[in-house]
Structure formats: structure tokens, C-alpha cells
């Protein structure tokens, strides 16, 4: 009840974004339909995958801050390799969903196998989709583990941004070859030399390794393909060993079941093979394997070092979890390291705006989670908002995109409560320990927070945040971070007038409106990104205020300032659509009745939500 807040207060966050493709659903087959079709002879030859020995294979991905041109570069690479026709309107051809287009975030570069002739040899270049956002850090690291190198794209005008840094370090830690590319050199304000210096300073990459291009005009793009071949090593794999394949993505197709994206580390997989999952131990028969070009092309076989898709009668995406290892039935192998189940970091209540839409919303949530096993769903109900769910997401963007897809694809209108984070408590009460069957418990719903008398300590999740800003805003940003209980870890000038700040933040301090505040006090110039940094002991007193349910009392004091008789909706009646107006009125009247029961306060629900949006003093 105390978490009720309308959506939108932390919304600016989505600009740092990039979403993984499993989140956004299966590749829309229709969008590929216009791409080039091969003659059947051509087809046979092209898709005999045994023709590509390991030394002629390169697996790589493109990483970039939002809007630095990743999508456009992918378009050009697809064109150059004849994967799609050169057309004037190949404009971010891979962004198929409304949510991607509207936000300029890109799912882009769905995994695509490119065929490229260079110095007399035909190469197989696998461009592997990596979700570029830290919400999906784990998924990014799994995708990157299928690569041997990355193209790091930086805007020649904006330079290095927070997300560039986060992405770089993921690739760096995975020990991948990094090809820095400075894009948009055609822009009037482009300053590629300055960006080269930044790259040298921040990433320690020699200036002469930067490739300067304009993906929009196609300038110098071909040299990237050459660099991919020359600078990225082929995968280290053994075709003769038994099959070992990494699942780095999966989507659900209602007719064909789960389509898993796989990278083969060893061996061969063939249609008709019996395979097993290391995680679930379930066995399946392979119905189809193939490559993405970028649409699905069945190939009979895939060989070690190659990347493609596999369909094997899996019924839900939870059977093909990202990071899982597949092997031949009765030929088990050591699973690839690093598998872990998705761990939600942000929780929020979700309720239908109108209770009569509960069943519709329920079926929409079910359909969306078919494609996204990382969303956790628990039924929940609130006195003021009725029946709903408590959903767990990997991060804020994940939650935002999920919600937007509900709205756009299922026409569902929902109320999201203020996002909260999973706290932990180390219990001292023997009785409670017995009840929970463990000493350290995780609390996802603050309403169930154990009293401090029964607790040794509380823990809260923390993240390492990176902020890059023009230096004139440094002072205000530092004050903002301090106000959010953040601890400074590092400050560094990345060029004459840009500063990179690193802070350790309690996650709950940034989930609501941190990004909005940051953007507004830096006139939009600062960028922000964060990564998981574990748990830390939390201050008890503060937690009490926030979590012991006293917020309703706080609400009462704030509510007195609201003028309930101000707001009026003068919306135009749409051709006599009284129903909508009446629904709204009845709902508000209903909410008011309920609120009165709770706290003896008379305030319409929208005002109630508005009040909760403004954060109490921190």
C-alpha cells in the first residue's frame, strides 16, 4: 500500500538503454520477408556449413552507448556482405517493435551470419546480438562469451559516455579483442581527434587503432570487416570433441516452441540428434538447426565455432535459459562456466487500472513472460488498487520496457507502484529462523519486512554507478550523489572538459528518480550507467522510516497540502463515449471510498498517487 506511485517518475532512465532481444520477443519473421532470396542452387552451396573451417570464422558483437550508431553500422555491414540488399531505406531494419523505434533504443543486430570474401577466402562472420544495457549484464556477459572480439562504437561528437565505459569493461574483462570505431565523422561538430584521445586515456587503446567512419554515409565501413578478420582471433574450439554448445538467447514461437540461439564450443550438432541440457537434465530431439542470415536458414548441421539457432521441442523459455550448456545425450561434457539463474533486482506492484481488466492483463502478462523467463511473477493485492501482481525485473529499463510492451502490444493500461529493491535481513529471532528455515532472508515486498528487534542486521543491494559529464556540472552532481547516500570511488578527467565519476550507490536511491534529477541538473549532458556490486549493511534508522509502514502517516501530513477541488478533466467527449468518462469517475469514486476506510483521508486516487510521487525528504 505504501508503495503506490504512478509510473514515470524515473522515466528518463530509459535513455541509457538498449534492450536484449529476448525481452522484445521473437524476431518478426515478416520484416525479413523482403530481404534477398537466393536461388536454390546458390542456397545449397551457401548453407553447407562444413565449408567454413574454424580459422575462417570470426564471432564478434557491436557495443555502443545509445544513439551512437550501432544500428546504422549493423545495417551497413549487412549490406556490404550481401546479407540484405542495398536500399535507401535500410534504416535500422532490425528494429521491429514499436518500443524500439519510439525510444531509439535498439535491439538491432539480431544475431546474423555474414558471408564475406577477403583475400581469396570466404569468411563466416557471426555478428552476435548483445543486449547493451547493464540491466542485462549477465546476458551481455553470456553473449560476449560466445565472441572473441567486439566493435566498440563511439560518437565522434558526443565522445565516450557512461554506457560506453560499462560495455568496454565487460568486453575487457572477458579478454576480447576490441576494435574502437569512431562513428559520425560526417557531422558538423564531429571531433574524432578528441574522441581518439579519450579512448586512449580511458581505455588505454593506442590512437592509431581507432577506425573513423560514417555509418550513415558508408564511409570507411569496409575497413571494419577487414579489421574483424585481422584483429579478432578465430574461436578456439574442437570439431572432433563431443558437442558443447552455449545457449546465449532464446525466444518463443507459438507454433514452433522455443528457438534457442547457440554458439558451438566443440563438436557438431545435426538435425535428429538427441541432446540434453546441463541445467535441467532434460533431453530433446533436434528438429531444426540453422543460421540467421538474418532470417532463419535451416542448414542440417552446425559445427564447432559456428553460431546459429536450434529448435528441439522445448516448450518454455525456462527450458533454454541463457548461459545453459547443451550436449549430446549420453555424452555429457563439463558445462561452460558462469551459469546462473536470472536474479531480479527491481520489484514493483502491477495492477490493472480497472479491476474489470484483471483477466485481460493476466493473459497479457502470461504471454509476455513466455518470452522472458527473467521476469518473476507473484500474485499480490492492495487495499487501494485491488488484485494485481508483484513482478521482479532485472532492472529499471527491463521493467519499463515490459510495461511499455503491455501497453503497446496488448493495449493494457496498468498502475505500477514505486519500484523497490530486494533487501536482506539477518535474523536473530530463533522462532523466525525456524519459520523461514534460514538465517538470512530476502524480502521483496516491504510489507513483509521483519521487525528490527528480531534482526541482527539489514542488508541492501548496492551498485557501482558511472557518470560522465561536462565538468561545469561536477559540483551539483557530486551533491546529488551525496544526497543519495552514494560513496565516491573515483574521479577522472577523460579530456579537457569531461569528467568521469564513479560512485557506489544503494540501489534503492537510484530506482525512483535519480536519472531524471541527473539529467535535469546537467541540462541533459550527463550520462549514467551502473553495475551490480553486491550488498552492504544498511542504516537501521533510515530503513525504519522507509519500511515499517509509517509512510501512510507521512502521507497524511503531505496530503493536507493537496487541493482536492482543483483538478477537472475537460476531455472532449469522443462521439458520445460516455462509458470511458463514467468508468474513470466510478473508479475514482471507488478509490476514494477505499482510502477513506484506510486513513480517514478524503483525497481522490490520482491526487494520492501524485503525492506519493514526490519523494519525502531524504
Amino acid at each position: 500500500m505504501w508503495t503506490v506511485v504512478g509510473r514515470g517518475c524515473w522515466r528518463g532512465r530509459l535513455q541509457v538503454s538498449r534492450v536484449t532481444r529476448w525481452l522484445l520477443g521473437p524476431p518478426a519473421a515478416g520484416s525479413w520477408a523482403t530481404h534477398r532470396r537466393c536461388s536454390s542452387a546458390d542456397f545449397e552451396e551457401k548453407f553447407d556449413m562444413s565449408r567454413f573451417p574454424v580459422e575462417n570464422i570470426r564471432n564478434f558483437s557491436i557495443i555502443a552507448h545509445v544513439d551512437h550508431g550501432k544500428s546504422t553500422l549493423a545495417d551497413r555491414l549487412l549490406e556490404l556482405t550481401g546479407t540484405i540488399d542495398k536500399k535507401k531505406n535500410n534504416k535500422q531494419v532490425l528494429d521491429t517493435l514499436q518500443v524500439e523505434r519510439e525510444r531509439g533504443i535498439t535491439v538491432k543486430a539480431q544475431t546474423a551470419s555474414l558471408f564475406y570474401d577477403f583475400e581469396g577466402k570466404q569468411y563466416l562472420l557471426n555478428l552476435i546480438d548483445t543486449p547493451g544495457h547493464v540491466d542485462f549484464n549477465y546476458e551481455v556477459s553470456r553473449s560476449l562469451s560466445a565472441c572473441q572480439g567486439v566493435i566498440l562504437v563511439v560518437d565522434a561528437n558526443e565522445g565516450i559516455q557512461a554506457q560506453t565505459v560499462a560495455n568496454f569493461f565487460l568486453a575487457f574483462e572477458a579478454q576480447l579483442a576490441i576494435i574502437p570505431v569512431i562513428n559520425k565523422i560526417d557531422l558538423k561538430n564531429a571531433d574524432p581527434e578528441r574522441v581518439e584521445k579519450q579512448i586512449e586515456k580511458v581505455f588505454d587503446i593506442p590512437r592509431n587503432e581507432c577506425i573513423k567512419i560514417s555509418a550513415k554515409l558508408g564511409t570507411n565501413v569496409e575497413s571494419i570487416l577487414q579489421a574483424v578478420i585481422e584483429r579478432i582471433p578465430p574461436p578456439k574450439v574442437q570439431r572432433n570433441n563431443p558437442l558443447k554448445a552455449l545457449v546465449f538467447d532464446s525466444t518463443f514461437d507459438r507454433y514452433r516452441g522455443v528457438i534457442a540461439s547457440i554458439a558451438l564450443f566443440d563438436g557438431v550438432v545435426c538435425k535428429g540428434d538427441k541432446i540434453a541440457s546441463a541445467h535441467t537434465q532434460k533431453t530433446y530431439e533436434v528438429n531444426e538447426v540453422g543460421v540467421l542470415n538474418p532470417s532463419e536458414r535451416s542448414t542440417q548441421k552446425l559445427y564447432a565455432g559456428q553460431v546459429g539457432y536450434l529448435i528441439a521441442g522445448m516448450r518454455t523459455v525456462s527450458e533454454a535459459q541463457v548461459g545453459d550448456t547443451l550436449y549430446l545425450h549420453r555424452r555429457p561434457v563439463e558445462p561452460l562456466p558462469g551459469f546462473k539463474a536470472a536474479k531480479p533486482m527491481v520489484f514493483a506492484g502491477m495492477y490493472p487500472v480497472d479491476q474489470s481488466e484483471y483477466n485481460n492483463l493476466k493473459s497479457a502478462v502470461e504471454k509476455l513472460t513466455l518470452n522472458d523467463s527473467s521476469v518473476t511473477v507473484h500474485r499480490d493485492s492492495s487495499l487501494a488498487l485491488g488484485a494485481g501482481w508483484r513482478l521482479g525485473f532485472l532492472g529499471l529499463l527491463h521493467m519499463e520496457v515490459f510495461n511499455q510492451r503491455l501497453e503497446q502490444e496488448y493495449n493494457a493500461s496498468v498502475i505500477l507502484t514505486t519500484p523497490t529493491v530486494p533487501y536482506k535481513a539477518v535474523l536473530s529471532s530463533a522462532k523466525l529462523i525456524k519459520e523461514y528455515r534460514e538465517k538470512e532472508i530476502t524480502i521483496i515486498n516491504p510489507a513483509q519486512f521483519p521487525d528490527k528487534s528480531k534482526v541482527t542486521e539489514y542488508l541492501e543491494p548496492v551498485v557501482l554507478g558511472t557518470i560522465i559529464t561536462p565538468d561545469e556540472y561536477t559540483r551539483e552532481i557530486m551533491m546529488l550523489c551525496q544526497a543519495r547516500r552514494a560513496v565516491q570511488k573515483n574521479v577522472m578527467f577523460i579530456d579537457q572538459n569531461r569528467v568521469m565519476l564513479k560512485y557506489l550507490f544503494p540501489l534503492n536511491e537510484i530506482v525512483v528518480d535519480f536519472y531524471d534529477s541527473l539529467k535535469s541538473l546537467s541540462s541533459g549532458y550527463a550520462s549514467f550507467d551502473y553495475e551490480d556490486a553486491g550488498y552492504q549493511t544498511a542504516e537501521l534508522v533510515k530503513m525504519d522510516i522507509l519500511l515499517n509502514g509509517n509512510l501512510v502517516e507521512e502521507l497524511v501530513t503531505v496530503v493536507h497540502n493537496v487541493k482536492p477541488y482543483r483538478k477537472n478533466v475537460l476531455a472532449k467527449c469522443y462521439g458520445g463515449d460516455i462509458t470511458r468518462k463514467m468508468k474513470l469517475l466510478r473508479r475514482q469514486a471507488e478509490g476514494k471510498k477505499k482510502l477513506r476506510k484506510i486513513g480517514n483521508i478524503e483525497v481522490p486516487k490520482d491526487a494520492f498517487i501524485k503525492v506519493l510521487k514526490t519523494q519525502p525528504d531524504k
Partner: protein
Amino acid sequence: MVLPRALARGWTAAAARAAQRRRRVDGEGASPGPEAASARAALYVHWPYCEKRCSYCNFNKYIARGVEEEVMSQCLVTEAQTLLRMSGVQRVESVFFGGGTPSLASPHTVAAILEEVARAAYLPADSEVTLEANPTSAAGSRLAAFGAAGVNRLSIGLQSLDDSELRLLGRTHSASDALRTLAEARRLFPGRVSIDLMLGLPAQQLGPWLGQLRELLQHCDDHISLYQLSLERGTTLFTQVQQGTFPAPDPELAADMYQEGRAALQEAGFRQYEVSNFARNGALSTHNWTYWQCGQYLGIGPGAHGRFVPQGAGGQAREARIQTLEPDNWMKEVMLFGHGTRKRTPLGQLELLEEVLAMGLRTDVGITHEHWQQFEPQLSLWAVFGASEEVRALLEQGLLLLDHSGLRCSWEGLAVLDSLLLTLLPQLQKAWQQRISLLPGDRPASPARPGGL
């Protein structure tokens, strides 16, 4: 422009011109004909196409790539015929072409529909026939053609006199287009032109907005609608505001604009006859009046709403009806079944009374005892609201009036009606439940009165 089909029948251009010279309605809208209320209705026609999506609009509209107007027109005619028959309506008091952008439709289509209405029911020569017109799609010659087709009132979606605001709204016209269209419309439809003006846009300030209104008062005819922008999910503007591209409209400021605006209009001789609508010289819209008085209306076209008792089909209860949203599906259904009604919800007596209350209070005359009694003969307004503490508080604050003539908002109350309804609707529900629990022995005959009207 030759409109042979329209001219061939009873509903003629001459009748349309006669309607332009019609007597002005003073007071409560259309004078009812001799028929029973259930045999009368207003007709709403939805034209679902637009040239371009406005950034704020979430109405049911489509950007057409080549409209098959012949088919569309035929389907509208068919659906009008079907619903008229189904409803048993004998007299159509007003027709409203809304959208979408109905001024993009051909005048032939408008003529064909009116002709069908006049054939299937009685469409008096002085019936109000309104067309919503968009300044860019409504050149003078087109407006004249619509007049010849039978339209006798125009509602111009002017929205703003500031070019940058018009761009923000995604409108295709400029302020000068709007004024030119307005002048043209007034020449063709003197005394019968309405304009829409929006308030509460992102970054809009009180002073300049009042300036726009004052300028409009120099040019306008006898009817103005003021609408507060409501940001609707799924629109471009909603996203832009969420992303911080534009500041969120300030509801307090919008409330100030509304107050200052209605004061300025009052000073200029306009009567605020409804929350959003202002008229002088008696130029009230009878069509919209039907909505507020909970009269019957038929809705035809994709996504149109209607409220009527399907008497012709043996129905007893008043139904809320919605037609199929997507034009293609709607057309298919009309061709197969004669109509594209997607949803029919019979309204219970309490629901109907809630509508009577919420809609009636939007008007300056409010709900008269006689009006209420038409819908609920047993439970009077006094019985529902007279004893409530909370309602008394509203009366004492001077927001609401309950007296010998009925229940209505004061000038101050009209501006905050939605907040008042949050007290009034639960009170009505409470009184209704008490009545049910009191009644069984008392009133044997009355529960069989399902639909009202």
C-alpha cells in the same frame, strides 16, 4: 459540385439552407417532436481517417493509404439503415460527423448518409447537421459542397493560434490557415460555426493563451469549446512528455487558464452552457445537448458509440453500444451483417442514473426535477441527496445547488465538477442500495423498468 443523389430525395440543399436560417434554440436544446423519447435519437457518424496523426490524439483514427470511399460510404449508409431499423427511431434530431477528419470525406458520402437517414426516418429540415472540419482539408469550395450536401453547422478543430503550439500538437495547419478557414466557414454558415481551443499545453503560459482567446473573440462566431489537453497513453506527446522532451502540463496553470478563459467568454456575452462549451445568441449545439441529457443516440462508423433501446429488435433495456474499431473489419461486418456492432452492454437502472447525474451536471441548467423523474419516478433528487452530510458541505461551500428546480453546479462548482462527482456518485449508489433493501413490499411494479427512456 453536383450531388444528384442527394438532390433527388427529400433531404435537399434547400432544406439545408433553410436549416441555416433556423430559429435559434434558446435554453434546453432541441424542442422535442411529438414522438416518444424512445422514438427519437441523435446520430453520430464516425469518419475514421486522418491525413496525419496529431501528437495528442488517441481517438480511433487511421492514416489511410487510399481509402475505398465508395465502399466506406456504402457501409455507413447500410449501418445507418440497420441501426435506425433496430432502434425503431422515427425522428433523427441531429447528425454529427466526427472523426478522424470527416472533412476529408467526400461531400457525396455525407449526402448519401443524410439521404438515407431522411429516407429511413424523419429528418426535420431544421435538424442540426454538424461536420468537424480541419483547417487544411477544408477549403472554401469544399465547405460549400458540404453545405450543399446538407451540412448546416461546422465545428473547426482550430486548437491554437500559435504556430509553435500547433506544431507541438502535430496539426497540419497554421494559425493563418485556421483564421482563413474560420472566415470562410462563417461566410458560408453564418451563426453556425464552432471552434475548438485547447488549453494546458506543455509550456503554455496564461498571458499568451488569454491573448489567443482574445484574438479569437475578434474572429469567432457564436460557439466556442475549450478543452484541456489530456495526455493519453500511447500518443507521441505522452511519450515526449514522459521522456522530458516537453515539460508536463501544469494542472494548476490549466485550471487558471480555464477560470480566466471562462470569465473572458462570459464578458464577451457567451453563456457557459456546459463545462467545455460556450455559446451566444442561443447557438447551443443540440447534438451534444442530447449526450448531456442522456437522450438516445445512434453511433455509426468504426468505433462509434451509441446509447439506445433496440426497440425494433424487441429490446427493452437501453444499451451502450460500440462499433468495431478497425475500419477494414468494420466494413466486412457491415457487409455481412448490416452493422458492425462489436459490443452491447445493457445499462442497469443505477448505471443509467449515474450517467444522468454525471452528464446532466455538466450543463449550466443541471438536472431538473422533471428531467430526473423521466428516468427515476420513485426516488427523487431530494431523497437521494437531501440528507447527506457530505452533499450538504458542498451546498454550504457554494459549489452545488439543490432547490425547487433541481440539482446543479454553481459557477464555481462547474469548474470542479469531477471532484464533486466523487462525493455525489457514491451517495447515489448508497441511496440506490437503501432503496432496494427498503422496497420489496412497497413497490411491486417498479423493478421492471430496466432501461429508462
